């Protein structure tokens, strides 16, 4: 069943020096219960896309077009108070830096409780507190009964991210957006957190949209993957398919950057050149200035995302249009 359907989404930042087209016509579907990875170099528009789903793109950013259907309803059309009811209740988000994502002056328990009460005013404070303890246990925080009364600064980095996950899970969301949730953590803790997320996903039957620039993580945890480049989705498919047989030259470049699968070295760095300025992206295929395989139409015509053989396989590259015809 389709949980989330993004259609031709455009999110632009109206900055002083021009319009930054951070997400420029992205279409994407997420299934119920799936673990979806969104990958791409820094500055490709991944976070912007994630924020747009909650309608929390910071100014001067704005959704400039398209639609986002969540269980069949276009949430971009909802009034703000209806959207608020969805945030933290049916769609939750966890951030890169758990330290920055927690209010330093309230206890972890307070922040869980207020998240529960914001969406379930009929629940008593006492019940919400009991649920908070239950949630801390669920995410594997030892001594939950005592730690629920502690402040964020009393938690270690890994425990803090667990607490953030507990808050995100407070109302049993159907979708969890995780924007580089382990970038600030060390490798062992990173593995623990991602394994935890994966277990919780199965247990609670939620979907996860994991934003990352680490291919190793995508390989290890996700069912499907989308590759973003310069505000565009350039390739989608089952993770195994995309990683074993990448089609788009950009995806190939990303994979070329990993020496061994799954290692911490799976950082996206080794494609020559840089992500273009999205205020003034290159014409045609946005990857063409860096593409080893560019040919005639590449700097003129923009390639559309077209289906390929294989389950849900799509790619946006002229190479495949040529093969097709």
């Amino acid at each position, binding site marked *: 069943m389709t949980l989330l359907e993004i259609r031709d989404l455009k999110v632009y930042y109206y900055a002083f020096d021009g319009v930054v087209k951070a997400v420029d016509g992205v279409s994407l579907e997420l299934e119920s219960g799936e673990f979806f990875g969104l990958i791409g170099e820094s500055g490709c528009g991944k976070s912007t896309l994630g924020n747009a789903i*909650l309608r*929390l793109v*910071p100014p001067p950013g704005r959704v400039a077009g398209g639609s986002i259907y969540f269980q069949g309803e276009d949430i971009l059309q909802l009034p703000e108070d209806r959207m*608020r*009811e*969805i*945030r*933290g*209740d049916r769609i*939750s*988000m966890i*951030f890169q*830096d758990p330290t*920055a*994502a*927690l*209010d*330093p*002056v*309230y*206890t972890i328990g307070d*922040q869980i409780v*207020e*998240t529960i009460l*914001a*969406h379930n005013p009929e629940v008593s404070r006492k019940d919400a507190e009991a649920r908070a303890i239950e949630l801390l246990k669920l995410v594997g925080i030892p001594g939950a009964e005592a730690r629920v009364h502690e*402040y964020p*600064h009393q938690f270690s980095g890994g425990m803090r991210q667990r607490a*953030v996950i507990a*808050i*995100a899970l*407070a109302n049993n969301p159907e979708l969890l957006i995780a924007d580089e949730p382990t970038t600030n953590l060390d490798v062992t803790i990173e593995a623990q957190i991602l394994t935890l997320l994966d277990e919780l996903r199965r247990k609670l039957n939620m979907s996860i949209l994991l934003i990352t620039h680490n291919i190793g993580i995508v390989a290890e945890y996700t069912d499907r993957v989308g590759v973003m480049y310069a505000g565009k989705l350039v390739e989608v498919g089952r993770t195994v398919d995309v990683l074993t047989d990448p089609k788009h030259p950009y995806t190939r470049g990303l994979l070329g950057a990993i020496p061994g699968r799954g290692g911490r070295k799976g950082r996206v760095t080794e494609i020559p050149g840089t992500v273009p300025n999205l205020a003034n992206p290159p014409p045609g295929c946005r990857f063409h200035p860096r593409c080893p395989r560019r040919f005639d139409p590449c700097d003129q015509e923009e390639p559309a995302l077209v289906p390929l053989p294989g389950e849900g396989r799509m790619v946006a590259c002229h190479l495949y249009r040529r093969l097709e015809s």
Partner: protein
Amino acid sequence: MLDSDLLRLIGRRIVGLIPVMFGIAIIVFLVFSFVPGDPVTMLIGKQSDVSEEFIQQLRHKYGLDRPLYVRFFYFLRQLIHGDVGISYQFNRPALEVVLERLPATVELAFFALAVAIVIAIPAGIFAALKGGAVDRGIVGLSVVGFSMPNFWIAMLLILVFGTTLKVLPISGRLDVTLTVERVTGFYILDGILAGDWEVVRSALSHIILPALSLGIPAAALIVRLLRNNLISVLGAEFIRAARARGLRESAVIYKHALRNALIPTINIVALQLGFFLTGSFFVETVFAWPGMGRLAVDAIYARDYPVVIAAVMISALFFVLSNLLADILILVTDPRTRGVR
């Protein structure tokens, strides 16, 4: 944890206060020994019919003809017993003279702080939230408010409300026709205690202009600070995270952003309170407000150093107390400060 933190904090401040008070007293004493002129010459002033012999008698009476180290020794001995000496001007214990003036200063300080907070907090929030022209307007006003010295604001207020509109009194603490039994020394409180609403009304109307004169520049400073803090907190990740949790905008702003923005503002507010409590010579002079600031300055001119010492010691006490108050408030509002040594 909070309790033990509080006790430790209070203990440390009080213990720190004692050497400060002694140090200040000694410094003031020594400074006065080296500035030209002594209390007797100042007391006698330009009266030319006073004989040199009489002056010498007075000097002898006050011990001013003794060598400095002897006087210093006597002074220290007094000080250890908590006595700063007799006022030359009033011929009464200096501390008593100062304490008499204290309620006027404290009452004014309290109202000035109220003015500053009542103006600054809503204006700061409003500027930070509205942005644009509203923000620029408030920031502009705060620059003006802060760059006007408070005696200048006092003159302006007198001109507008006192002289031109004639709606508010511009001098003293009470209409001359009224009296109230002195219980606390705070006229408004004394009026309430006596059930004399005429006194309360008069005392309130007298305090408005001096309180505004002191409070406006402080408000201007606090507005800027609160606005900047609030804007920076509103850009913080945890505010976006709070929205992502589906909290109402009012909870996001008043529960999360404001509390975080107020913490770094507390120290500055306390500093302002400290200044108010030590008395403002200018404002007290302009409004003929019988407070400690004016008393202290008059005492300096009269070389009445026991009064100066008493006033400075009380001021130091107030500074420490307002800082202590700030520390306590910060301890209560910011959990990160608790349990750290």
